[in-house]
């Protein structure tokens, strides 16, 4: 018991030292928000507060991303945060309603520079082994024989059926993610530290898109997804477009449509500086360190 506590405390200490050395400032942002996340497949945990004054709905943050981006747009410079985050409808040996996230942003980094920085961090923290970088397209070609960037939705459905997998998806990006989980992820266990980068534009989330490629990456430690990083979108208009697109999808799936976070969008009238950011799951990271 105490051993596990010591292991986590030491790890957090090392993370803080790593960022202190690089002049990245530790920040804390609000965990209790007025707006739930618009992310189609992440559910915020809602609650009612101030019942004896004037009842209000609040939501536990699912990630500190938007609050930290407000700080970035105000000129915070490089920042990091270690906090608990909360998600509804998560259950399993690797998924929980509450977990610890390390989120950090580096100014003037693109996603490749950030991958280099994340690799340095996980090595400092004691993750051993060689670093492998594979583009999303290359991984699909190598592990599943699929030319993912040039295969349309109908053709991909046929491929799913050939592999005896479900093809019942609303959007091509969801089928791509499903096929990656089913066909590519099992092969990633052979790599101690593996970055998958440059996703199809449809999976851009909040990252910049150049041509048909979204500038984002994921980190897998021996096959377990541990981190998700973006070359971040900068201006309010781009975020508004993404939020609206996510709400359209929510509507089609009969999920709650979320009123946009106007605080955030107003704040971003002053755009973010060029930066890249990443979220790292601390419990999964600890599990991969001896």
């Amino acid at each position, binding site marked *: 018991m105490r051993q596990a506590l010591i292991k986590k405390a030491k790890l957090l200490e090392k993370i803080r030292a790593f960022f202190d050395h690089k002049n990245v400032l530790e920040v804390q942002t609000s965990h209790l928000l007025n707006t739930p996340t618009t992310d189609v*497949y992440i559910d915020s945990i809602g609650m009612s507060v101030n019942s004896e004054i004037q009842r209000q709905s609040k939501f536990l943050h699912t990630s500190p991303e938007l609050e930290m981006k407000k700080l970035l747009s105000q000129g915070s410079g490089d920042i990091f945060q270690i906090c608990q985050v909360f998600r509804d409808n*998560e259950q399993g040996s690797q998924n929980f309603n509450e977990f610890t996230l390390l989120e950090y942003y580096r100014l003037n980094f693109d996603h490749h520079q950030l991958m280099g920085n994340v690799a340095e961090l996980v090595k400092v923290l004691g993750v051993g082994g060689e670093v492998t970088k594979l583009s999303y397209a290359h991984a699909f070609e190598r592990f599943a024989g699929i030319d993912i960037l040039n295969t349309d939705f109908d053709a991909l459905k046929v491929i799913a059926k050939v592999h*005896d997998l479900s093809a019942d998806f609303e959007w091509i990006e969801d089928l791509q*993610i*499903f096929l990656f989980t089913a066909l590519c992820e099992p092969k990633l266990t052979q790599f101690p530290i593996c970055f998958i980068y440059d996703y199809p534009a449809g999976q851009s989330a909040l990252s910049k898109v150049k041509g048909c490629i979204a500038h984002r990456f994921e980190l897998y430690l021996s096959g377990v997804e541990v981190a*998700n990083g973006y070359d971040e979108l900068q201006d309010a208009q781009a975020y508004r477009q993404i939020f609206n697109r996510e709400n359209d999808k929510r509507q089609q799936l009969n999920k709650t449509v979320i009123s946009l976070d106007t605080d955030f969008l107003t704040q971003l009238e002053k755009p973010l500086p060029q930066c890249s950011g990443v979220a790292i799951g601390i419990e999964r990271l600890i599990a991969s360190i001896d």
Partner: protein
Amino acid sequence: MAYYSTSQFKNGLKLMLDGNPCSIISNEIRKPGKGQASNKVKFKDLITGKTLEKTFKSGESLEGADVMELDMQYLYNDGNEWNFMDPNTFDQFTINDSNMDDVRGYLVEQDMCVVTLWNNNPISVTPPNHVLLEVVDTDPGLKGDTAGTGGKPATMNTGVVVQVPLFIGIGEKVKVDTRTNEYAGRT
């Protein structure tokens, strides 16, 4: 037959997969940072005994398999068919000799075992974890030897060959672990 959604999947649930009844060994929910959840499920094919792994979209449904496990008494075999009886209903079931490969060395007449039925037809038999078998052939025993100083092969009355301690002689009854085919003591 009922359909089961991934949210109802649990270990031991019997489902139809590729035309064969299967039993869930493990069910892992995989939720990517971005995107929909899926379920990684490991199955045991109850006909072939093989382990399979398959990924399902969360919310997908599979047809349940009409599989029952019943305690039955092994009665006898006539070389072609093995006969079992449900002691509650006295219903008798037969299994073809070719389906008995893994277990025929552990079945002693009158012993209880578990018979798996699919659509009311027996598809497999699980013997008790330990059975009492009689040694019908082995090299002569050595005096003063004790367990743990090596062993010798011994043929049992059911035909199975088990490694036994050197002091065990023909005609003795020994306990055998049916999961590992190992000697588990004298009676």
